[in-house]
């Protein structure tokens, strides 16, 4: 059985009076079991060339609805280095394409998704590079 882990560390020495040091690890498992996940899209790096949602092309599809069984884990990172060069992630399945997350330059996110919605990304600048990966159980 494969073992896949995700560790987050949040730290600051000057945000609070005392030092902030928060760290936790989770093992990614098939839903409601202790069995490790078996599938991944692998790490992707793509250029987003669309500056709006709903246009014909240029957005990057991060995940297609129901591609994986619940719960797929999404890792995303905005590879831009200029502040203000944002990436917007939206739900392309729900009416109105609601925005879900926004990543400024250098930001990353890790999201255990429902798995039943398609996620796409556009950016404020053309092009903006994004790195992403989905881990879970293919179906």
């Amino acid at each position, binding site marked *: 059985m*494969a073992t896949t*882990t995700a560790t987050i560390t949040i730290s*600051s020495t000057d945000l609070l009076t005392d030092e902030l040091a928060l760290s936790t690890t989770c093992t990614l498992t098939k839903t409601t079991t202790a069995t490790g996940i078996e599938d*991944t899209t692998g790490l992707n790096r793509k250029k987003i060339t669309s500056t709006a949602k709903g246009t014909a092309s240029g957005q990057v599809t991060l995940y297609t609805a129901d591609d994986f069984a619940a719960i797929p884990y999404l890792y995303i990172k905005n590879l831009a280095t200029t502040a203000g060069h944002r990436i917007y992630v939206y739900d392309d399945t729900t009416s109105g394409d609601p925005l879900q*997350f926004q990543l400024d330059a250098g930001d*990353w*996110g*890790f999201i255990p998704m429902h798995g039943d919605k398609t996620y796409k990304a556009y950016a404020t600048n053309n092009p903006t590079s994004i790195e992403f*990966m989905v881990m879970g159980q293919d179906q």
Partner: protein
Amino acid sequence: MATTTAAVTLTSDLLSDNMSVSASTTCMKAGTTADGLDQMEYGYLDLVTGDEYDLIAATPTATKASKLYLKNHSTDETYFIAVTQNAQAIGKLYGGDWMFIPADFHDAAGDIAITANGGTNKICYALFHEGTALVTT
């Protein structure tokens, strides 16, 4: 300026070669690399099953940067919380899982709500932000 760093490491032996992906970011105010997020909320909750609660009652100011860390500390892997933003599902955390999102609080309704399922879930959260619109009593 406060400096808060968030780092992630993903490791796996799923592939032929071992995978190790790391990323780190300094949590900055919107549109700048010179000024860090300087406000924080932190909480730990027992959340009984069934009802939906606003996890963040005071809505972070729209168009400003916010980072949300959320973890389900439940040890029963069948327990989970559904996470919504502005009534849209954005994630589901089973016991032991965590999420970290650069949140898009793009309007006044863009707060975060959670619903517990399976039993009483133990939830830890931290919100790093640069200002909130406080709710009038």
